[in-house]
C-alpha cells in the first residue's frame, strides 16, 4: 500500500538526489547480496549516490514496490527515473550502457576498466 505521505517522501528523495538507490542496508554495509552488487557497480564507476535503507523504514520498504511497480529491492533511480534492479544494472554495466547513460544524463562516471 502506498499512502500519500509515503509517496511524497519518495517523490522528494528521487527528485532531490540525482542517483538514488533503495537498498537493504547501507552503501558501507549492504545487508543483501543483490543490493551489494549495485553498490559495487556504482562505486566502480565512481558515481556519487545516496542509499535509502528500506530495512529501517517499513513504509518505504512496502511503498517503493507500488511506487515503481517493481516487486523487489534494490531499485536504482537516476534523475527521478526508475532504471532497474540488480540484474538490469549488472547487465547495463557489463555492456557499457550504464556508464553511457550516466554520461548522457550529465552525471560523472568513469569508463569501466575491462
Amino acid at each position, binding site marked *: 500500500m502506498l499512502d500519500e505521505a509515503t509517496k511524497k517522501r519518495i517523490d522528494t528523495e528521487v527528485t532531490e538526489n540525482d542517483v538514488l538507490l533503495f537498498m537493504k542496508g547501507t552503501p558501507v554495509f549492504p545487508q543483501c547480496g543483490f543490493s551489494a552488487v549495485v553498490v559495487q557497480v556504482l562505486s566502480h564507476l565512481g558515481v556519487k549516490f545516496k542509499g535509502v535503507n528500506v530495512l529501517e523504514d517499513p513504509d518505504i520498504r512496502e511503498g517503493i514496490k507500488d511506487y515503481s511497480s517493481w516487486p523487489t529491492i534494490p531499485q536504482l533511480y537516476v534523475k527521478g527515473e526508475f532504471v*532497474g534492479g540488480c540484474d*538490469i544494472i549488472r*547487465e547495463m554495466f557489463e555492456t557499457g550502457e550504464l556508464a553511457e547513460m550516466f554520461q548522457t544524463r550529465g552525471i560523472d562516471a568513469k569508463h569501466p576498466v575491462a
Partner: protein
Amino acid sequence: MTVAESIKSKLTAALAPSELEIEDESHKHAGHSGWRPGGETHFRVRVTSTLFMGKSRVDRHRLVHAALQEELATQVHALALELKTPDEQSR
C-alpha cells in the same frame, strides 16, 4: 505443486518460451532474511521468448513479474532474471 513447478507453468503459459530454466538458489542464501528451511525462496530464472522482442529490460522484467505476481507476493523472496530474445540467445 512446488513453487518451481508453478513458476514453470505460469511462465510457459504467459511467455511461450523457447527456453526456460528455473534454478532454486535458496541454499546460497541460507540463514539470510527471507530464507526458509526447505528452500524455494530464491530463484534464478532464464527465459528465451519472442515476446521480449522490441522491449526494454524493465518491460521484460515486468512481464515476468506480472505472470508471477502471486508467487512474488507470497513464497518467493528473490528472483534473478536473465531474459533474452531468440536472436540474443544465439549470439
